[in-house]
């Protein structure tokens, strides 16, 4: 096993130093300052140097690609330095009196009058030696705690080096200050920095940068909701060990919800409302597909849309697909009660409503990514079959919740099939219907649209919608996922018409859409398209047996038939 610590990339990032300086400045000024320092301490210069600290692994508690927990022994004697600027009290008598009780004060008349001098302090030759507890999780960032006092020695050089009293005093005070900084503030600073680096939810500003980076770097694709149960840290920041995590992922429920960010929950709530009231305003949700992508495990946990019969289902588990499934389902039950009870699912749904097809595909491609990750990290299985099996075991262990298990696969399956290029038109129809269900609540409407597919919305809006939804997705979804959508569109021209037709919210989303497409993206599109085609082929071959067995491939499922026709 080997770890690769990148020390120099930290220094390469120009923003890193700026942020670190800001955080250090606030941290240094938080605690009460010694009397000799009469002004705020400003971090003037910060350099981590080129010599990385030596790390010795003592213990590893938890290890996965997206989380890590371990204890290190760290030794550092590098060339990092830190320059601080502040103003100090130059009169030693003044500081002498400051901390003394007034009762025994000599009470000088004017000898203690102050003289403040601007001072520049350089901290260098920092020698650290400490035991470090490091907890890393993609969702919660990096938590670093020193087990002992890390500061071994330090050289303080300042403008007062010629005056021994002041020099000693500064050395003493700064060491004291630095110790508290290391023990209390540094973990918080590192945590915040790591959150900025890894958590898109934390740094909303940097999302655009992240979107650019994502296509190149799959690992960066992080979502706070991506896999909540896999968190190594719970909502209160406590470290969870593996058993706790597993128990959490099993019972689902509140703990998982507590891991969601409030901002996104609010957005989802807004979406639910807009959906219920058929409001034209649908707030765009960033990384909506991510959230849904987390859905499968979550859903299987909570909703228990158990798919023991269809291993391929979990594989295809596109969040949108699954959510749409549940949605349709509740529709077929004609019960609206489900909507509020599971807002997240519905929301996911409406987020991608703008383009049912595209969304489905995005999530699909997405899903695949996730699968590979899951395989690599947890089960050490690489093939899709194995993945589906693992998914199976996961889902089977869940108790089926509010919904009957059976109808779910019904909806799920068509989506899957649609995505795969070689599919028959009938499946497309099915998919379309499912998306119709999602988009509109009254059944009559649906029926009417089914009857006259081309008349549903004004025909003039049609072309726009056909084109727009994809960019709309682009905005809300990482680019990587959009590419397959393009390719799929190309392969299914007919669907374009039907899908937008049936949707109310679609125009709104299209409004928010933005133009996209660079050369890189095009290349990406091509790559993804080919990959999707390949995967779809695999899936189809895998699924074929199931679907054919259940005879759903050719004839629409009973729940569907009325809606579609």
């Amino acid at each position, binding site marked *: 096993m080997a770890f690769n610590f990148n020390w120099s990339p930290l220094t390469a990032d120009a923003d890193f130093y700026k942020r670190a300086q800001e955080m250090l400045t606030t941290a240094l000024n938080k605690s009460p300052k010694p009397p000799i320092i009469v002004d705020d301490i400003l971090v003037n210069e910060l350099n981590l140097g080129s010599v990385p600290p030596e790390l010795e692994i003592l213990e590893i508690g938890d290890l996965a690609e997206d989380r890590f927990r371990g204890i290190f022994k760290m030794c550092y004697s590098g060339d990092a330095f830190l320059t601080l600027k502040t103003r100090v009290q130059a009169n*030693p008598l003044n500081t002498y009196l400051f901390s*003394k*009780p007034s009762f*025994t004060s000599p009470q*000088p*008349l004017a000898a203690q*009058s102050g*003289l403040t001098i601007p001072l520049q302090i350089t901290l260098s030759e920092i020698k650290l030696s400490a035991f470090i507890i490091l907890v890393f999780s993609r969702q919660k960032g990096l938590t670093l705690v020193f087990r002992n006092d890390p500061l071994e020695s330090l050289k303080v050089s300042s403008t007062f080096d010629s005056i021994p009293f002041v020099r000693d005093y500064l050395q003493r005070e700064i060491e004291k200050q630095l110790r508290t900084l290391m023990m209390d503030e540094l973990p918080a600073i590192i945590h915040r920095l790591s959150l900025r680096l890894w958590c898109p939810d934390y740094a909303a500003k940097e999302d655009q940068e992240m979107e650019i980076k994502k296509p190149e770097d799959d690992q960066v694709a992080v979502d706070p909701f991506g896999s909540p149960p896999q968190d190594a840290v719970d909502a209160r920041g406590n470290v969870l060990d593996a058993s706790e995590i597993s128990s959490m992922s099993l019972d689902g429920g509140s703990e998982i919800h507590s891991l969601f960010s409030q901002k996104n929950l609010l957005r989802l709530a807004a979406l639910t409302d807009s959906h219920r009231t058929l409001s034209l305003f649908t707030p765009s949700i960033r990384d909506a597909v991510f959230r849904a992508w987390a859905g499968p495990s979550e859903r299987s946990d909570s909703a228990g849309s158990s798919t023991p019969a269809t291993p391929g289902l979990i594989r295809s588990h596109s969040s949108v697909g699954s959510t749409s499934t549940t949605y349709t389902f509740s529709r077929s039950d004609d019960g609206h009660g489900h909507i509020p009870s599971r807002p997240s699912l519905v929301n996911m749904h409406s987020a991608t409503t703008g383009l049912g097809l595209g969304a489905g595909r995005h999530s699909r491609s997405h899903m695949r990514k996730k699968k590979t990750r899951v395989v690599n990290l947890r089960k050490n299985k690489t093939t899709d079959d194995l993945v589906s099996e693992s998914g199976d075991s996961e889902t089977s262990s869940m108790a089926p919740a509010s919904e009957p298990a059976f109808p779910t696969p019904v909806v799920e399956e068509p989506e899957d099939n649609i995505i795969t290029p070689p599919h028959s038109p009938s499946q497309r129809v099915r998919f379309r219907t499912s998306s119709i269900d999602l988009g509109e609540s009254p059944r009559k409407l649906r029926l009417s649209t089914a009857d006259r597919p081309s008349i549903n919305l004004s025909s003039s809006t049609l072309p726009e919608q056909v084109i727009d939804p994809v960019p709309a997705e682009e905005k809300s979804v990482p680019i990587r996922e959009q590419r397959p959508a393009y390719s799929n569109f190309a392969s299914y021209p007919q669907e374009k018409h039907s899908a937008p037709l049936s949707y109310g919210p679609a125009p709104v989303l299209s409004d928010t859409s933005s133009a996209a497409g660079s050369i890189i993206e095009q290349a990406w599109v091509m790559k993804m398209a080919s990959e999707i085609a390949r995967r779809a082929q695999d899936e189809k071959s895998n699924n074929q047996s199931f679907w054919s067995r259940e005879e759903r491939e050719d004839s629409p499922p009973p729940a569907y038939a009325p809606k579609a026709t």
Partner: protein
Amino acid sequence: MLEFMDYVQHAFYDTSHWNFENSYSQLTATARALLDFETPAGLRLNLSSLSSPNFATSYAIGSVGLVDGSLSYLYTSLPLHTTSRSSDIDLHNVIRGYRQIQELRKPEESWMWEQWQGGRRVDKRDTLLYGRLYLPQSTLEALYLRRMSPTQQVKLSAVSDSRLRNGGTILALHQYDVGKYSAETLYSTDGGLIGLRGLYNFGPDPRKDVTEAPRTEDKFYGRFSAGAEIYYGSLNKSGGVSFGGRFATLPAHKGVPLTATLTLNPLMGNLSTTYAVTAGKNLALCSKFDFNVYSYESDVMLGCELWRIKARVPKKKERSMAAKLEWRLDPEEKSDVPEPEIVAGVLKARIDQNWKIGLLWEGRVKELLFTLGSSVDMKRRDQPFRAIGLELQYSS
């Protein structure tokens, strides 16, 4: 307002004829009283008693954050016959305001202290012992004050506190005062600080017999004093120096009483001037200007002190029955001694260039002496009142 124990200590100085003000450390006493007064924070209660002429106790309880308090005891070998009842204490004695310096007294000769009995000296040196325990901080303050001779005094003060380095500090101060000049040496165990202070009063020497009457007809009849102090921390190799001068009018001055001081710290380049004047019978104004020649930092502070005297209700004169019967007016009653003023309270206010305002209202309500104070920071609009406090004193 002086705490009761300080009040008793000053009574000891007075009784033992020690001129407390003839010291370099008291050069700017007026400016400090008018500008650097402390504003109380929270509620504080003092219960004190001078139970016998030799023994005083004081209990204090306060609520700054959490409840804290202190117990203090004082013993003096010199019987003090001063008014200790808070209803009778003259407020001028407990409220520090404009300090009117007095004419220098001729120091007593040492033989005046001698007491002989049966061919042996039986006189003892006057001593004051004072201890104060703060709870719950467990801080102990102790003071030992001894009049060595009519011109000398030794003061040992100590603080014991586990939070201090070495568990506490001791300050030893030896004062020598002959009127014309005074000198002090001090040593503090904290940092091995050694200090020297001296004050010289220009003008006639009080030790010599006065040959000529004071020239009160001058425009300013006052006294100029100059002094210096030097400190050296033997352990931390640090030190400090300052020079100072003061001109203050004496009571015989016919014009407006004023005090002006100038202090100089040559090491730090600090220059400070104060000017205080009693603008009326009940009003004193003071200003202070600081300037540092090295850093060009300056500071301005203004303060005032306003004594509010209760309006004396003129006695309604009724003709006595005898006068009525005799068809004449009552004879005019003339009293040579004016009735003592009844001070309703003293308002002190200060303001500095940073718009920090300190307000203090001191006075007496029935048997209680009270101090109501607040510090206001006008630059912080959201919460200008930084602290507000009330201090109540009762003594018997």
